[in-house]
């Protein structure tokens, strides 16, 4: 069955089909229709879940972590300032090894107060240990929620499904709705070995000294490394059942490519049509869309970049004092490689300024005129 739904509702349906059992959310700005629809589903019985309305995003994530530690599937959603307010508990979710799944609508951070898209909110959380999936359309949003539970519950780490504000969150698209029985087959009930159980009491997250903490961090790193092949396996298995396969990255027209445009989310989607145009003009350019940002698909990036002449990373985010964040990651992954191209970093579309096909063509043409990387930031579209 197909439905025309906005990206926010794609998250809601993803959580519903995954049979989330506890949903905790702060219902006011910057909340979106994700939670509105889920609260309706809980109220009318469509979804058999406990809906907990809390007083802040910090509490929303705390409720999810607590519920998840009892062995139930949890969901929440937020955006920008709300995600920032969760920061402390994002670390807690990882350390407690609770596979919470959350939707984050990429909005630019205030001040100035804003609601338009940018990725700096979620990228600011990159070192928490949360897995991050950047989606390019509403179908992928829905599908990624289901896959996120599967991977998260296997590696016991939380996952964030991320979509661009307005470009997806408030844009209606046709979405194929997976059948519940098939989702149940794909996603078995959540089982947890170490969980809160009144019949077998234990302290969770208690004081741990230098004799144990280090190993616990090592185990988390190993778990997130294990998630790298899992995202591929789960994406393929999803494809077999539902006809839509996913991986860590997506490539487009790379077979004979001499240059690669690297981006994420909806900017990468727009880049595809820019590449079609450039290909018609005889340019040998391809696309690398990074879908899973954490764990970072470094091996994929290294092997794809080893065979090309120039790479252009387009970031809709900024790490002040450094550069675009995907740019840093791509550069870092390639640094020790023998065969690597010059990597150009472009920052564009901050605060939701539109990034169109022509912008990406302009970026490509500008970079083609450069012999070497002069600066870590090429600004596109800023009025200086």
């Amino acid at each position, binding site marked *: 069955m197909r439905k025309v739904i906005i990206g926010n509702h794609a998250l809601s349906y993803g959580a519903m089909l995954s049979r989330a059992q506890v949903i905790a959310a702060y219902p006011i700005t910057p909340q979106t229709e994700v939670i509105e629809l889920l609260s309706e589903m809980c109220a009318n019985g469509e979804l058999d879940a406990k809906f907990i309305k809390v007083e802040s995003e910090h509490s929303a994530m705390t409720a999810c972590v607590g519920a998840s530690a009892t062995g139930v599937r949890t969901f929440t959603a937020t955006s920008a300032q709300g995600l920032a307010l969760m920061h402390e508990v994002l670390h807690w979710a990882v350390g407690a090894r609770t596979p919470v799944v959350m939707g984050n609508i990429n909005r630019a951070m205030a001040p100035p107060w804003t609601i338009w898209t940018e990725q700096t909110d979620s990228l600011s959380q990159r070192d928490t240990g949360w897995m991050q999936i950047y989606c390019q359309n509403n179908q992928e949003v829905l599908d990624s929620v289901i896959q996120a539970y599967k991977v998260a519950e296997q590696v016991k780490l939380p996952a964030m499904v991320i979509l661009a504000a307005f470009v997806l969150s408030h844009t209606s698209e046709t979405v194929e709705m997976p059948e519940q029985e098939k989702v149940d087959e794909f996603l078995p009930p959540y089982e947890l070995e170490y969980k809160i159980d009144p019949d077998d009491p234990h*302290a969770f997250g208690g004081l741990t000294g230098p004799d144990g903490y280090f190993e616990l961090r090592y185990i988390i790193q190993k778990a997130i490394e294990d998630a790298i092949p899992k995202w591929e396996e789960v994406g393929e298995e999803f494809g077999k059942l539902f006809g839509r396969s996913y991986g860590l990255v997506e490539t487009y027209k790379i077979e004979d490519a001499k240059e690669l445009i690297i981006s994420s989310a909806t900017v990468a989607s727009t880049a595809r049509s820019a590449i079609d145009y450039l290909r018609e003009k005889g340019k040998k350019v391809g696309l690398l869309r990074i879908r899973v940002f954490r764990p970072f698909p470094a091996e994929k990036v290294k092997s794809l970049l080893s065979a090309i002449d120039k790479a252009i990373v387009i970031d809709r985010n900024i790490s002040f004092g450094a550069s675009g964040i995907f740019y840093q990651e791509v550069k870092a992954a390639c640094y020790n490689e023998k065969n690597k191209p010059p990597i150009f970093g472009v920052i564009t579309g901050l605060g939701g300024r539109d990034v169109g096909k022509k912008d990406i063509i302009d970026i490509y043409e500008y970079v083609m005129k450069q012999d070497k990387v002069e600066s870590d930031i090429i600004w596109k579209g800023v009025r200086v």
Partner: protein
Amino acid sequence: MPKKSEVKIIFESIKDMPPLAVSLYTMDYNKTGSWRNVRPIIDYDKCTYCTICWKFCPEPSIDLEKIEVDGKEKFKPIINYKYCKGCGICWTECPVDAIYTEEESE
């Protein structure tokens, strides 16, 4: 989960460890009474057995013993000095000032 032990478990490697910080033993081995600078002492001549000190003790290191006073069942608070940290909540909360303090000498 493994059986709880009353001695501290030292893990030799990650193979023996759970994947998260979960207590596999009780905290009995951790005798927090050694942290105490000030020792609370209950004056049982003043104590009315209201059990407020027991309710407030955060550790909790006040135990109750069932006794009979004038034919009525009462609960007598007894401080467990192995774990009492001397935080001062009991003597602050006691409504009849039946808990006095002494500096710990050792």
